[in-house]
């Protein structure tokens, strides 16, 4: 029986395609990475269907690429060696929200927008951490790629918020991780060996997550944006440290744009929140005074009349960050998500501007501070999808900023395949060897998203 017919037998003819239009579309993403080649696209609805698809693929050595929202922009869901793209968005049920034990149990295809609205409607006192991505991004996808979201400066990145998982192994076993492996309780992923770590950050090379329990958090009634402006980039690490030490921020960004001129400064954008008006006033007052005596009180100023567009941009959840894709009227956007230690921010800041100028781009920064330990430093590149040379320029700029990231001792978040290779080359050989052994153990035939985390 052909692979196509076998897939039809599993999910039905309406949910599998080998037509050229689907193969074309599912062979590329919205970033600047080259296209791959999908042979089949499958839309599973149940964990059993995922299981059967993986058993089939494993028995025939057919590559499988799991796909969520497809918005990593770094080609992580672009099938490099053909095979099946498993579009998980048909598994879109919100199964349970437990306010008392503070988690939401969802299927892997639930979008950020759907969960956010569901909580707003049915559990208005709670929220989940929503990334700076379009609302079509999936919750599970962002957690699995160690993505961050709003409120991450306070609560950590989304992968830290996982309370349990259901995963189908490449060999077809359905496995549960956390308290759900003992009982129908999804409130914690431990204490037990941290098996979630076998699937988080692996870009789908070790299995397919089908359910996820994610922590939910209190949603304060009041939120406000405060901004500080400076040109003293070298003082940013100290300033970041002070903001985080005060420990009252819900969210914290560093931004800069070379155009328009009024944006060509470093802005520290602090979002404060509170259940009570008095609480938020206290926090605002504390932050307003934070830099009054900082290095003589001059270098960092409080922005009194924040531009309404900026205020909206940082209060909107999710923000319309995708607008950056049309900055060059070309529909393309990609970035290096550098995870840098705080002390390296000035060096990265200067190098990023140099790289942008080298490729005739206007520099634009949005960085999120993550719990005081690190900064997600975004080297952002808009490009014109209609111009191959411009796409190539974006790829080269990306490669340069990946190299800078590693030179500065940083790590690359959701790096495209060339970036993963850079990381592996620099990595301690024993660590890389461990990655290789884990992959071989879980995926003996190497069917899962081949090309990613591929240790030579």
């Amino acid at each position, binding site marked *: 029986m052909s692979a196509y017919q076998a897939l039809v037998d599993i999910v039905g003819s*309406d*949910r599998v*395609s080998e*037509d*050229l*239009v*689907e193969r*074309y*579309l*599912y062979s590329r993403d*919205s970033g600047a990475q080259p296209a791959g080649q999908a042979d089949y*696209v499958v*839309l599973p609805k149940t964990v059993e269907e995922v299981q059967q698809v993986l058993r089939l693929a494993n028995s025939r050595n057919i590559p499988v690429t799991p796909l969520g*929202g*497809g*918005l990593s922009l770094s080609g992580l869901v672009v099938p490099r060696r053909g095979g099946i793209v498993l*579009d998980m*968005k*048909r598994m879109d049920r919100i199964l349970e929200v437990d306010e008392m034990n503070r988690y939401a149990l969802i299927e892997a295809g639930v*979008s*950020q*927008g*759907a969960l*956010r*609205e*569901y909580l*707003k*409607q049915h559990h208005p006192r709670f929220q989940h951490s929503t990334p700076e991505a*379009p*609302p*079509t991004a999936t919750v599970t996808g962002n957690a699995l790629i160690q993505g961050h979201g709003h409120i991450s400066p306070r609560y950590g990145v989304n992968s830290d918020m996982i309370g349990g998982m259901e995963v189908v192994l490449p060999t077809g076993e359905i496995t549960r991780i956390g308290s759900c492996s003992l009982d129908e309780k999804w409130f914690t992923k431990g204490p037990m060996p941290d098996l979630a770590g076998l699937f988080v950050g692996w870009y789908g090379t070790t299995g397919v997550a089908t359910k996820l329990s994610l922590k939910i958090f209190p949603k304060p009634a009041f939120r406000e944006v405060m901004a500080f402006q400076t040109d003293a980039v070298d003082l940013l690490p100290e300033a970041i440290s002070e903001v985080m030490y005060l420990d009252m921020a819900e969210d914290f960004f560093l931004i800069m744009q070379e155009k328009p001129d009024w944006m060509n400064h470093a802005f520290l954008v602090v979002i404060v929140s509170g259940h009570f008006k008095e609480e938020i006033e206290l926090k605002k007052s504390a932050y307003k005074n934070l830099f009054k005596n900082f290095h003589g009180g001059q270098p960092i100023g409080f922005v009194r009349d924040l531009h309404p567009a900026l205020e909206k941009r940082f209060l909107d959840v999710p923000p*319309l960050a*995708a*607008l950056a*894709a*049309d900055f060059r*009227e*070309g*529909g*393309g*956007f990609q970035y290096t998500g550098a995870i840098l230690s705080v002390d390296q921010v000035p060096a990265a800041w200067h190098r990023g501007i140099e790289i942008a100028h080298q490729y005739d781009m206007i520099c634009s920064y949005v960085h999120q501070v993550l719990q005081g330990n690190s900064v997600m430093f975004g080297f952002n590149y808009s490009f*014109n*999808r*209609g111009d191959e040379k411009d796409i190539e320029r974006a790829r080269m700029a990306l490669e340069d900023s990946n190299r800078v990231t590693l030179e500065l001792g940083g790590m690359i978040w959701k790096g495209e395949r060339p970036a993963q290779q850079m990381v592996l080359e620099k990595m301690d050989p024993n660590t890389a060897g461990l990655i290789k052994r884990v992959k071989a153990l879980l995926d003996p035939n190497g069917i899962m998203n081949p090309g990613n985390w591929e240790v030579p």
Partner: protein
Amino acid sequence: MQYEEILHRCFRCGFCKLPSDYSDINCPAYLRYRFESFSPGGRMWLIRAWLDGNIQADARFQEVLFSCATCNNCVEHCIFPKFKDQLLNAFIAAKAALVDEGRLPPQVRDYLTRLLEHGNPYKMPRKKRGNWASELGIESYAGQEYLFYVGDVGSFDESGARIARSVANVFRKLGLSFGILGEKEGSDGNEARALGETELFKHLAERNIDVFKQLGVEKVVTLSPHGYNALKNDYPELGGEFQVFHYTQLLVERLPAIELPDSPDFAFPRKATFHDPCYLGRHNQDYESARQVLDLLPGIERVEMKRSGADALCCGGGGGNFFTDLVSSGAETAAKVRVREAADTLGADMLGADKGAGFLVTACPVCTLMLEDAVKSQNLDGRIQVREISELVAEQLF
């Protein structure tokens, strides 16, 4: 191809397939198929791939294009202000290019052939166009204030004709001066245009325009939002400058002058929720006329579905799909989702045979028929009743 220059600018962020609260899928074609290829962003990329020679205009590509219900949700919710208004135009331009090449799904080809050969998709002779009104004694248009333009569905579909009679009876009760064209009326061409058959649309429209002009028509009131859209927005480019109204817009003006009964013919208040027809709402920004009419009716308690106004989920009948059936088959279709949403909105407390059903109200014969079918398929017959708003008004007046 016209609008080719915007295709590469789509980032495929996906706002276009959602309502403004991002809660659910609001694109009928994507809802039906769930492959990204059937989303507006997918369509943008695929049209570009086709123009670049990377894919062929095979049957699947044709299905991708012609399953678009032209509901305008993508235009409403795309976040890119510099080109969002052209999204649907680009899809129609691509369909037009396929029509020129003769590469069409069989259902679309058959629909357009019927329209070309018979002047309507029902293969009915022109002389029967006025049959819907034969027992009403409605005057032919001869200088009355309004021409009542009925269109294909109102003229030839049994349920559509019922709705047309209902509107005509309400007009009479309101004392409106109006006449009809009968066999002089032709198809409005709205669906032909949406399917990219621009020459056929032009032919149909110009024929109507000639008739209107010969008869000295100045004001036209339409039964269907589809006809309203074509006459209001597309006929002027072809020299057809008329004052065009949807019938609900006249009702909202004139109904307050009529003394309605204190109590309705049903014994207790009914909940009613309004389904916005895309060609009245998103295409022409009239979200209020029908609601105001509904609010004038005694015994009706209007409640809103979560997706309403600019966020309304299309019934899936636009863009010719009412006739071609590309997005209305299958387990999960827009119409089926929509009637379930209506049932949830109308609430269990009003349901059941002893208390009567809640009303899912719309102001379009196409929406009415699509939703009626969906109610039956979802076994919601006893729980909600689909009502064209003119029928609710008529029940109060007669």
